[in-house]
């Protein structure tokens, strides 16, 4: 078993879908409090990595450790309970409910020893949800049905729901995808501000390199299921392989 000061560590992860290799000998460690972006073209293996960390997919070989505990075989629910939460590329929210009710569900799922006779809309719960609404600048949307909300607000709600549980690690799958160019920075500012309150490790998948540069300290670049670079932003974005296969023009790896 891996024993070191990494909060999250993947060791020798391999994953294939038929002939397609989605993860090839992935070895990476994430420390507490780090802000890490995962970059790579479509199909590079970023979301597969995220899905394996959160238990949605199981690696063919290799192990994933969280706080030095092997979580490879655990299901998403148990992994979430242990302290790894995630948001989704397409926000997974409860459409017929209001923003407030979505957060109430998220809060409810994070509480132990539920009472079957205590109204979920208690003052204690209401106060906490109001605080979350403020942190994510969602107050004006509190009582609107989420199916009516604009894309950026839905993203914020999705992330806020993942954060309600106060996780140790938050994984964000393309937080700015589907959001207009002019909305991206305000959205990321709101997210960064909301997340700064917690002593949180954040791993996010992102395609926009300006966002990556501005909001992460460390970058892990994927290409065809492999990690081709892992360092601070400047170094990774100047890396020859990264420029060639991720941010540059060439799409076929040289042999």
């Amino acid at each position, binding site marked *: 078993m891996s024993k070191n000061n990494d909060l999250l560590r993947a060791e020798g992860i391999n994953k294939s879908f038929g002939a397609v290799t989605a993860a090839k000998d992935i070895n990476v460690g994430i420390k507490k409090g780090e802000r890490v972006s995962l970059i790579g073209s479509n199909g590079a293996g970023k979301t597969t990595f995220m899905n394996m960390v959160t238990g949605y997919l199981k690696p063919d070989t290799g192990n994933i450790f969280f706080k030095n505990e092997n979580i490879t075989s655990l299901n*998403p629910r148990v992994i979430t309970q242990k302290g790894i939460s995630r948001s*989704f590329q397409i926000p*997974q929210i409860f459409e*017929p409910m209001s923003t407030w009710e979505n957060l109430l*569900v998220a809060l409810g*799922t994070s509480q132990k020893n539920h*009472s079957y*006779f*205590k109204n979920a809309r208690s003052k204690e719960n209401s106060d906490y949800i109001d605080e979350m609404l403020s942190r994510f600048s969602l107050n004006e949307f509190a009582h609107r049905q989420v199916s009516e909300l604009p894309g950026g607000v839905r993203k914020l709600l999705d992330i806020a*729901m993942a954060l309600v549980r106060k996780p140790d690690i938050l994984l964000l799958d393309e937080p700015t995808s589907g959001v207009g160019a002019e909305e991206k920075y305000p959205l990321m500012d709101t997210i960064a501000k909301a997340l700064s309150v917690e002593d949180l490790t954040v791993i996010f998948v992102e395609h926009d390199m300006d966002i990556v540069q501005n909001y992460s300290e460390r970058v892990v670049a994927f290409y065809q299921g492999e990690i081709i670079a892992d360092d601070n932003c400047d170094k990774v974005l100047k890396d020859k392989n990264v420029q060639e296969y991720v941010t540059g023009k060439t799409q076929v790896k040289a042999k």
Partner: protein
Amino acid sequence: MSPKLINNIFFQSIFLMSLLIVVGIFIPNWLVFVITKAIAYGLVGLGIITLMRGGLVSFGQGFVFGIGGYTAGLLGTQAGLTDAILLLFISFIFTGFVGLIIAPLLARYRDIFFAMLSLAFSMVLYGILIKIDAIGGSDGFVLPESTYFGIKPSPEYADYMLYVVSIIMTGIVSIIIKYYYDSTPGLIALAVRENELRVEYLGSSAFNVAVLNFTIAAGLGGMGGALNGIALGHIDPEFTYWTTSGEFVFISILAGYLSVPAVFLAALLLELVRSFSGRYFPDTWQLILGVFLILSIIFIPSGIGSFFKKFFDKFKNK
């Protein structure tokens, strides 16, 4: 009347229960019987809407309806237990326990698979019951007359006594169910209905929600079956037949999953339509029922409960 008082669940329930008990004195005996039957069916419907809130529909609630009915009947004939309150309570507990045993199997399935598996359980039970001559086979058997705290009411008050007991017990059960709906686990069940995967990613178990809701639905179905058996004074395998299960689904669709009282109103409407169409169109009452269901789905797709919700939301917002 203050909106706060109107929104108080105890006030609503006690007011409604008192009103029905008083009204029962003045209405004809046949209507008392029809309302008692409607309450029995409504209890099963309440179980189905509890499942619906978690995204599941059972086509086989005749299974628990039959178990509840036979539990009450066999306790009456074999153990000499005739107290209606005890019979209803024991049937609720026993059928809930049976539900808890099979729930882990059912909860692994969703949508039509859950519905058909529940139907399969009811058909197996039907097949067994019609073959057991010791409990009357396809004819069933007669239940002894009910008592209440050791007192057997005179025949002219027997129906009314059962009516009062059923209203009080159903009122208590409805309050408990309403509390569950408004609690955190009740809210999580609604979330499971919308997005099971997200609920898992938030750290809750959709499987546990399905097990809990089926167990509750089983208990309610069993209590409904016992009440129906006691009201009819007779129990037979038809309790478990698929057409009986279909009537419960009908009630649930008509009621919708938004309101507890709506399910009893829907059950009463079904009983009234059945009584009147059975009397005036004896060979085509299913046709009347079918047309009634089509109109309900077209004009009130969210069920009668959506009217109730709008009404109470209006008071809440005042």
